[in-house]
């Protein structure tokens, strides 16, 4: 029987006091930094303003330095852990080592992006804002994790396989003799004796597979309906706005409970909804190309044929599970989840697009296009939409985060996704039942979900700040 892993490994006694020391300095100086301005408000007897500014600068320096020292310590700890044997690394060291491909990918991404940021437009400007960079790092961390999990790299065990004797074992417990693969459950075992760490990292794949695509679909639906509603106004606008308010007045959770049940799947309603909702992306692309290229029939024909053929092939496969080539299929329970998430998100996108269109259609360049005799769809898609991109990109980031929360909610109530699925919502739900005795099954997925959504929110904030700057 091997020894269980300690939290920090052999280098812990050296690093821990240093970490605690710098953390204390950081916390105290940060608190000082935040309370200093308050001192200048005190009437008569308070410190004078220049003195406050001087001290503020000094304390700010201290905050920065201690923060940098903390990061340097963490990196140093991780790098040293890499050269130690598995047993000596400790739990945190092993965590760091398992994510090694992710760290490398992150460093490469950041290095290249910062090097060429002046040539990269809005994306490059993101690297001027600290908040934006932190957000981007958090998001990319999980995206890379998902990619590497799909390549079978970061995980230590199969997220579904059970090892007898590992039920509810604490983090760092070694596997019984004779079991294959990595020798430890780094973050312990859950109630069915599966590896918590592997399930947590596999959860990122579940989110990355669904959330961005569902958000893209919601945007396509919202844009295709929101542009004409805002541009034409009148009856069409009244009708579509009423419809979107109708869906928005529906408590989301009730909608999920009504829509995402095995009984509803039997009736085929989600398929019909998918059949309607998934037409919008094709419609969107067809109008997009036609309105631009209808004067060049040759080019137009190529674009339209490609869109329609590829579009309908995907459409048949995804929405109706009737792909003639038999390549694409979509599991029915995943389809329900996908459809309901798109359904819940599109009215909000519709409202945003409609509002932006109402604002932008009064601009001079729209009037100029109208005078030139451009068609209404050309004006909507090639004049108005590109000029609305700033707020839409920001909302896109926020909405992926919101979709992640919605997926978690579905998992938390055990709706739609398979019961064994390692998605974060389901794992939190399983873990919470034992929360008063064992913390380790519920906390890692909860923190993972929190960090991803936080990253997306910070990224949106950074993008908003940078796009407002020009």
């Amino acid at each position, binding site marked *: 029987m091997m020894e269980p892993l300690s939290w920090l490994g052999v280098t812990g006694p050296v690093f821990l006091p240093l970490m605690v020391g710098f953390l204390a300095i950081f916390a105290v100086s940060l608190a000082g930094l935040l309370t200093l*301005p308050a001192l200048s408000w005190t009437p008569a007897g308070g410190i004078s303003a220049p003195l406050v500014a001087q001290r503020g600068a000094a304390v700010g320096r201290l905050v920065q330095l201690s923060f940098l020292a903390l990061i340097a310590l963490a990196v140093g700890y991780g790098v040293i852990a890499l050269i130690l044997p598995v047993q000596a690394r400790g739990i945190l060291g092993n965590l760091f080592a398992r994510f090694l491909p992710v760290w490398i990918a992150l460093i490469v991404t950041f290095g290249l992006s910062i090097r060429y940021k002046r040539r990269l437009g809005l994306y490059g400007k993101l690297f001027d804002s600290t908040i934006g960079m932190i957000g981007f790092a958090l998001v990319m961390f999980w995206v890379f994790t998902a990619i590497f999990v799909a390549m079978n790299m970061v995980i230590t065990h199969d997220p579904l396989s059970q090892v007898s004797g590992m039920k509810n074992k604490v983090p760092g417990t070694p596997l019984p003799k004779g079991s294959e693969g990595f020798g430890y459950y780094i973050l312990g075992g859950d109630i069915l004796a599966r590896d918590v760490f592997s399930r947590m990292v596999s959860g990122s794949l579940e989110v990355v597979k669904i959330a961005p695509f569902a958000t893209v679909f919601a945007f396509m639906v919202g844009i295709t309906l929101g542009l004409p509603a805002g541009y034409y106004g009148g009856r069409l606008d009244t009708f579509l706005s009423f419809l979107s308010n109708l869906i928005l007045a*529906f408590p989301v959770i009730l909608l999920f409970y009504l829509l995402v049940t095995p*009984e509803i799947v039997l*009736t085929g309603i989600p398929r019909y909804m998918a059949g309607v909702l998934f037409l919008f992306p094709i419609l969107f692309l067809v109008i997009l190309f036609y309105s631009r290229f209808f004067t060049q029939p040759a080019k137009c024909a190529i674009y339209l044929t490609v869109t329609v053929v590829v579009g309908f092939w995907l459409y048949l496969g995804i929405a109706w599970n009737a792909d003639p080539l038999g390549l694409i299929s979509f599991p029915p329970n995943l389809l329900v989840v996908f459809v309901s998430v798109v359904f819940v998100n599109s009215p909000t996108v519709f409202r945003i697009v409609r509002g932006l269109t109402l604002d932008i259609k009064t601009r001079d360049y729209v009037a100029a296009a109208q005078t030139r005799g451009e068609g209404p769809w050309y004006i909507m898609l090639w004049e108005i939409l590109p000029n609305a991109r700033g707020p839409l990109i920001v909302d896109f980031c926020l909405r992926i985060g919101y979709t992640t929360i919605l997926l978690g909610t579905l998992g938390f109530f055990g709706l739609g996704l398979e019961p064994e699925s390692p998605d974060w*919502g389901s794992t939190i739900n399983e873990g919470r039942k034992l929360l008063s005795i064992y913390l380790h099954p519920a906390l890692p997925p909860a923190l993972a*979900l929190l960090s991803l959504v936080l990253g997306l929110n910070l990224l949106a904030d950074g993008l908003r700040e940078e796009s407002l700057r020009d």
Partner: protein
Amino acid sequence: MGLFVLRRLWVMILTAICLTFVVFFLTNLYPNLEKLAKQQGNQRMTDAQVESWLSNRGYLQAVPVKYGQWLGVLPGYQITGKDGVLRGRCFSAPEDAKTARRFCGVLQGDWGYSTVFKEDVSVIVGKRLWLTGKLMLWVMIVMVPSALIIGVLAGMREGSKTDRSLSTVSIITTATPEYVSGVIFIAIFASSAVGLKWFKGTATSAMDDATFANFTLPVVTIALYGMGYIARMTRASMTEVMTAQYIRTARLKGVAFHNIVLRHALRNALIAPFTVIMLQFPWLLNGVVIVETLFNYKGFGWTLVQAAGNNDIELLLGVSVVSVIVVLITQLISDIGYVYLNPRIRIS
């Protein structure tokens, strides 16, 4: 103003009818009814038996007819079943058929009978709604003032360190859904393994006797998620007001900064957050369902989960109607309140 309210009321009623119809349609789909028949009759019924069970009880009428009866605008059905028994919507024993009312739907106060709790739906909904009302009251007491204070403090000096740190705090709270913050709070404050053991991890006992120990965690969990959003809206509205001409005039006149904030800016800055707080209700309902499940507090949200999970059609319909109406009324209040609070719209 009166015309505006009437118009809004009409749209609200139309919305309510559409929404309840959708709920009615989705809960009365055939697979759900089949499940109901098997639950109430027996599990081994054949398809033909299921069908006769359903048609005897009026479940196989056209959906709009059923909806009208349920709403109480069409007379309740009276069907002499294939087994020769007379059944009706408005009476339980065949002898009462003559004396029974013609209409008995939601509008007449007849909400049906819960198959899970074996009680009238109206009684259950009333009881559970009161429990959730208690929770929501405390959520509002915690959430609204703290969100407004954070928003005003952050928005009064845009770009300052206070602004940056408070904005980060509100971003963090909006990024933490209830099922994450609840789990983290239970781990830190309530777990018997390593936690601080300040509070209890379940709020079941708070239903009769809410104390600081058993009610804090659920209240804080819901309040935190909504707080960040309201605070951000308040901050945005505050920064906008602070750049207005009349604030500059006040500063140039030499009015003290705290007086500018409290007397000149605050009132105008609070119009937008009022709408946001009101529109927050549908989201809070979400939070209520999650938190009541997490902390096992048997209120309205918990009832929704039970009704939906056990195919309790009448109860689910009742719960849906109440939640839709709550949402619509808050929207109405927010619309009217916005017009009332904003002098530019009120006077013109």
